[in-house]
């Protein structure tokens, strides 16, 4: 099967006061249509930067795309014109972000924000309200016809994130990039959102990149996992085998950080960065 997305040797720098900083140092991976890839790493590991780079969403400056290719269905995203890029954003690759309360525009209704995406990418849709209701219903929002008239602040955090997901799905993208979709939410809501994503995977045929710092949430949803550390992919493989038999010490450390139910521990495991850096180089 032809890969949906192929990232080759991607390197990204940020210009800062103290000089250029490497955020992503030559990473490569590829994705098949319908596949789910989890990118796991701590904050600062370059995982979110990688996600945003897929449609060139990083503000330039300070971001600089140093080298590499991002091939979406064979076309290099980094070589597209601004107009062509806008054609891909939302239509081919859609996003949901970490903080739904700030990621939704506070002064427009949910309906208007979803309708904006539909109007942009699906000209053929005539009954936009019906389409908005359909997607809100799909993500499990009760009474969608009424809720779509609400402004973001009238919804709970979990509902806001569902609305974000509905907005992303409404353009029927081939790839959904979920950038820490549960981090800002309560623990019980986190589980609901992950469940929602799992179910959507069954119902809608689309690839998902799940960006997270939490190994605990990826099993059962991700087919493969890429572990990022300091701008590099240090481990890449089938989720089950990585979880069972991690090769890289950083992966091992991350997996040990998952709190186990019923496990007796003196204290939570922490990662010793100095030691890791010495080991990894």
């Amino acid at each position, binding site marked *: 099967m032809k890969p949906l997305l192929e990232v080759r040797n991607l390197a990204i720098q940020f210009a800062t006061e103290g000089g250029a900083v490497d955020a992503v140092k030559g990473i490569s991976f590829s994705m098949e249509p319908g596949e789910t890839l989890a990118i796991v790493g701590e904050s600062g590991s370059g995982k979110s930067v990688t996600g945003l780079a897929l*449609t060139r*969403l990083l503000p330039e*400056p300070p971001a600089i795309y140093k080298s590499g290719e991002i091939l979406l269905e064979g076309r290099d995203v980094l070589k597209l014109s*601004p107009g062509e890029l*806008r*054609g*891909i*954003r*939302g*239509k081919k690759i*859609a*996003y949901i*972000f970490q*903080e739904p309360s*700030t*990621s*939704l*525009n*506070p*002064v*427009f209704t949910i309906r208007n924000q979803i309708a*904006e*995406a539909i109007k*942009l*990418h699906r000209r053929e849709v005539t009954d936009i309200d019906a389409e908005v209701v359909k997607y809100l219903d799909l993500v499990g929002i009760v009474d969608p016809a009424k809720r779509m008239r609400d*402004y973001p*602040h009238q919804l709970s955090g979990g509902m806001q994130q569902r609305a*974000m997901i509905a*907005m992303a799905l409404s*353009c029927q993208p081939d790839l959904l990039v979920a950038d820490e979709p549960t981090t800002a939410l309560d623990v019980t809501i986190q589980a609901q959102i992950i469940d929602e994503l799992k179910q959507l995977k069954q119902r809608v045929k689309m690839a998902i990149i799940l960006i997270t710092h939490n190994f605990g949430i990826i099993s059962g949803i991700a087919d493969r996992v890429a572990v990022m550390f300091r701008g590099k992919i240090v481990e890449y493989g089938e989720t089950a085998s990585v979880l069972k038999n991690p090769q890289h010490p950083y992966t091992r450390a991350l997996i040990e950080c998952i709190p186990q139910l019923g496990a007796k521990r003196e204290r939570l495991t922490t990662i010793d960065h100095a030691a890791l850096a010495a080991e990894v180089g």
Partner: protein
Amino acid sequence: MFSYLLRRILYAIPILLGVILITFLLSFVVQSPATRAKVILGKRATPAAIADWMHHRGYDKPRFFNTKSGESLLDSQFFNHVKKLATFRLGVSDVTGRDLKEVFKEGAIPSLLITMPAFFVGIALAVSIALYQVFVRDTPLDTFGALAAVAMMSLPPMVWIIFGQAVVALSLNYFPAFGYDLHGLSTVKFLILPIALIAVMGLGADVRLYRAIFLEEIAQDYIRTAQAKGVSNSRLLFVHVLKNGMISLITLIVAHLPLLVMGSLLVENFFGIPGLGNTLFLAIQQGDFATVFASVYLGSILYLIGLILTDICYALVDPRIRLS
């Protein structure tokens, strides 16, 4: 909505009382009416003339409580002052003796004719320039614009007026340099230059402020969301940034009122427009205290009305504000 409005109006009342107190302090306590009479009537005025002038204006009453037998306890400078201002009796001019209400009524129309257009033109210009700067942000054009805005706000307003009158009106002869004539369309040609000058005076500061507001908006998460949807740059600016930015802007627009007062104060005298600014300018030159104090009171009433209107607009535009 009604109770919200009522609350805002009730909130303005103590402030208005404070303003009345300030005008009282200035006109009766810091400088006594007797000193004022001497300033206005001249050094050679007879004691009788001064006493007459003061009596005519009620300035010879006791300050706080009238303890003279047979007279009301509250027939004093302070209570009369509060009573008069609270019922909009502004008194008479110290110099000409004309009723100030009439004087202000006459000046209102010419002043509104130049300040209102200047207000709207100024804001529209500043918002468009600031948005355009955000559109071309991080380019030399934006840097130049930011520098030009600072340069514009560093020039004193009189210099704009002098330049406008000397160069645009007198040398280039595009507009009449002086005069005012309220006759249909011919009024317009007398008004364009003063309006433009008042609008330009505040432009630099406004552009700078609005640009900062818009730049803050464009760094917000929801802008990234819109970009991720594939929204075009112009739609991003004119729909997403503008609507959010306008909400922040509304609260700042009332800060324009003092600028308009200053604008008309400086411009009207220059162009011979018989408005409030001109009246005030002459009052300053002639030492007409009563007129100046009355304009302080009226100015603050205007400001408070502006504040209430702002609050209403804010509540109407921002869905996060509940009116109840």
